[in-house]
């Protein structure tokens, strides 16, 4: 089967492709200092029960992928939460700061592993989430503006915020927010 085109499929496997790598924008410590200047942080790792996970999914309409919560209590009041959502190929690592009433104080993208869609780091876009609380039912293209060409990332960050606000309401609200 000699043919001048026969080897073309093999080219698919030998052409160079850049290795996937994460762009780390902020470490956990940097995000903490940015959101709660001068505060100290006490780790508070928790595991959701089945009932809690179901209640969060019901309240937010978003799947709970991981039962493990990565939390810090803030010395000045409030919570610092690190979580991840699905990106196109990889996960998007982000951090949320809640004040002691459960309102969203700040959101930061810590690691973004995709080459495209990184516009979700723009302050103007993230600013839309500030002050939101459980029950806000954030929805892309309605309460949250979409970024053309970054729709998947916008959608999943919005879903992630909905899920964490519901997590606060169902799991954390009863706990003291100060160490």
């Amino acid at each position, binding site marked *: 089967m000699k043919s001048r*085109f*026969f080897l*073309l499929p093999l080219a698919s496997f030998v052409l160079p492709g850049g290795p996937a*790598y994460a762009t780390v924008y902020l470490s956990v410590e940097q995000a903490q200092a940015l959101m709660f200047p001068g505060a100290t942080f006490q780790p508070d790792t928790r595991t959701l029960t089945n009932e809690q996970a179901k209640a969060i999914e019901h309240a937010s309409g978003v799947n709970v992928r991981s039962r493990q919560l990565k939390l810090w209590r803030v010395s000045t009041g409030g919570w610092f939460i690190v979580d991840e959502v699905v990106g*196109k190929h990889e996960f998007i690592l982000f951090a949320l700061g809640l004040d002691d009433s459960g309102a969203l104080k700040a959101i930061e993208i810590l690691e973004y592993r995709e080459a495209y869609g*990184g516009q979700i780091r723009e302050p103007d876009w993230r600013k839309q989430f500030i002050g939101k609380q459980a029950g806000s039912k954030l929805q892309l293209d309605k309460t949250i503006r979409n970024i053309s*060409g970054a729709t998947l990332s916008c959608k999943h960050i919005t879903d992630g915020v909905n899920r964490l606000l519901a997590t606060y309401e169902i799991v954390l609200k009863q706990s003291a927010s100060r160490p």
Partner: protein
Amino acid sequence: MNEPIPDSRQIDQFALETNRGRRAHESCPQQTNGLLSRHAAALLVTLFVMALAAPSPVRADEPLFGFTYTTDLLPKGKFEVEQWSTTRLTKATGSFWQQENRTELEYGVNDRLQFSLYTNYDSTAAYHNGPFGATTPGEPFSYDVPDPDDHYRRSRFIGISGEAIYRLLSPYTHPVGVALYFEPTIGPGFFEPEARLILQKDFRDDRLVLGFNFTYAPEYRRLPPDTSCMCLAETDVNADFGLSYRFRRNWSAGFEFFNERELNSLNFTNEINSAYYVGPVIHYGGKHFFVTATFVGQLPWATTHSDTQPGAIVGGRDYDNDFEKYRVRVKFGWYFGGKEKK
């Protein structure tokens, strides 16, 4: 395989009936092939040089499936080069192999509209592979007229295609993604305007993707005896389903199932062929490139229709000139374009 062996007159008559329009391309085939292949190779090299010279690769749309399209498009101002390779293998008898190649350049006009331009160039080899054991080239070589006992080999530039996809609804902001696709292909004595409806439904954080396509493609050729007329040769009507799950970072896997039909009309009458294919697909999406590979086999569900050629269906499978037992499709894509904001 158990068909009665015909005499030479039957084989000749079959070749006359099935190798539609063959004489239209008999003049100077080798000379034309060489010229066109050089043209295709030059375009291929140009596209890859453009890709390698461009700064800052970006992630863009990418096919989760080999045959089924989804509604993901390139963002505005982004480019992508894709190389497709489809291998068709195994007829009911004899030996058959066909390699179909496509080199494509895609551009995101805006976030709803994507344009593409590509070149198609194929190679094939066939021997005693057709009905009644006659050497029968597959489409698009089926308009050549080899002797029934020839060892047929040929490479050919098929044509240049343009493609436009317009997304009406995104699956990320609507319950179902919807897009319209239009692809005219123009080649020597050949014109095919292909239209497609694309639907996409996502589940489980967009990691489980269900795609559906409906394709309608009338095919016009200059056929003897009146080669001045670009007349309807056949109409392809396809339905494709694909299901893919991202099972780990960068990797998705699933399967595809599709039905391809050929008609001797524009209005869904005079059916010639209908074949069903199913098989697995695997996809890797990296930061700068993707690779997708699909292997499908024809299911033994083919039946005779009003315009089916005698001897085309063997063992429940359709082996007419656009059908075979197995297909393998590999796609490779390389992203490049504007610099991402930091």
